[in-house]
């Protein structure tokens, strides 16, 4: 099965571990993620102003690229991109006046009416391959690994784009269970990591990271699983400082769900690019005899 794939800017530089492990594991599951030949940055955030149209253009252009390739579906790995592309897509589907204005402004592009479907990789895993389909192919169950699934906010809010029930989602829980890991539920699983405030008010983001990580740690988690490069950065970057500030804090690796998928499919640790994770997960994985 071939699927049109939209990487997003960060995956090509700072989140190569997410991309490499995703492409490898999907290939092992029989899905070929074909990168769009031409795409631009999705814009990361969906403008919340009713009178703002120009900030949607970036996303819409990328969706038009998918349509130009003759595809009606596009998969993203980065949750941030997922949220923005999907919301822009809904705008073009549901608001005729804004749709016409945008199409008219982008005279050099063909008209777009929301013909493409935007999906996140987790949806493909749940809906097209299925958890049993994945469990069947597992070569190395992640036994004994206590993982806390962290959703962040981009996959679940607002409700119209949520890939799962926003208040108590289970999609990431179910994936990790399918991989044979011990899933640790924790109350801060859908709490925001602080997002772009890391640029303007990084100390607030540090506090958010503490709230999320300490909650996971109190429930016995050994590592946190995420799908968003910004969540990864915000949660991992200053763990040393957290350790200095709070004596009870232990460093906690943050892993992408695709890295765990690739590992459990028996593809070996090299393709997972654990060397690129900010907090090295290899000691933990070695202690569980997983690598």
């Amino acid at each position: 099965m071939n699927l049109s794939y939209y990487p997003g800017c960060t995956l090509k530089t700072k989140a190569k571990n997410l991309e490499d492990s995703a492409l490898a594991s999907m290939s092992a599951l029989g899905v070929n993620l074909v990168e769009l030949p031409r795409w631009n940055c999705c814009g990361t955030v969906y403008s919340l102003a009713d009178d703002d149209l120009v900030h949607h253009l970036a996303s819409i252009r990328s969706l038009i690229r998918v349509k130009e390739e003759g595809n009606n579906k596009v998969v993203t790995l980065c949750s941030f991109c997922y949220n923005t592309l999907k919301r822009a897509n809904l705008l073009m589907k549901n608001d005729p006046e804004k749709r016409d204005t945008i199409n008219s402004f982008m005279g050099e592009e063909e008209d777009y009416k929301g013909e493409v479907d935007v999906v996140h990789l987790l949806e493909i895993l749940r809906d097209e391959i299925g958890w049993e389909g994945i469990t069947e192919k597992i070569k190395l169950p992640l036994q004994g690994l206590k993982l806390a699934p962290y959703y962040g906010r981009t996959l679940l809010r607002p409700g119209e784009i949520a890939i799962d029930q926003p208040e108590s989602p289970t999609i990431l829980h179910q994936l990790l269970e399918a991989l044979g890991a011990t899933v640790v539920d924790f109350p801060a699983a859908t709490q925001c990591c602080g997002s772009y405030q890391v640029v303007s008010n990084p100390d607030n983001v540090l506090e958010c990271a503490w709230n999320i990580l300490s909650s996971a740690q109190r429930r016995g988690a050994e590592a946190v699983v995420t799908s968003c490069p910004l969540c990864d950065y915000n949660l991992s970057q200053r763990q040393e400082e957290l350790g200095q500030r709070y004596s009870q804090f232990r460093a906690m690796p943050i892993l992408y769900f695709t890295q765990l998928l690739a590992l459990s499919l028996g593809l070996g640790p090299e393709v997972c690019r654990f060397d690129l994770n900010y907090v090295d997960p290899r000691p933990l994985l070695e202690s569980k005899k997983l690598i």
Partner: protein
Amino acid sequence: MPISISAKKTRNEFVRRVEEISGQNLHLCYQCGMCSGNCPMFFAMDLLPRQIMHLVQLGLEVEIAKSKTIWLCASCLTCTVRCPRGVDLAKVMEALRLITLRKNIDYVEPSKIPVETLAKLPQIALVSSFRKLTA
């Protein structure tokens, strides 16, 4: 310091502009405080989201401008999805920010970010920060 509230203020240009940009009916809010209770950035805010909402309803632009709250918002939309009245508070916050940003006043200055930080940050952080907080 006494703050004067009047009918003139509650129906002023500022309130109209916030309603126009956010598309929200500000008077739906009945100050239950659900938004403040769920906000992940509450610990850093001088005025909580509920209080900002109240100030907006009263048209008190100056009081809002004194507070840092709207600039600490991370657009996580938790307030939006949990508001029992269906008020999209994230949109109200965005409208409040835009009223200042559209006067060509930045909150974040790209050239003042230390170069080591620029090299380390993932692109999504910089793009989203500049979109939300620069003019």
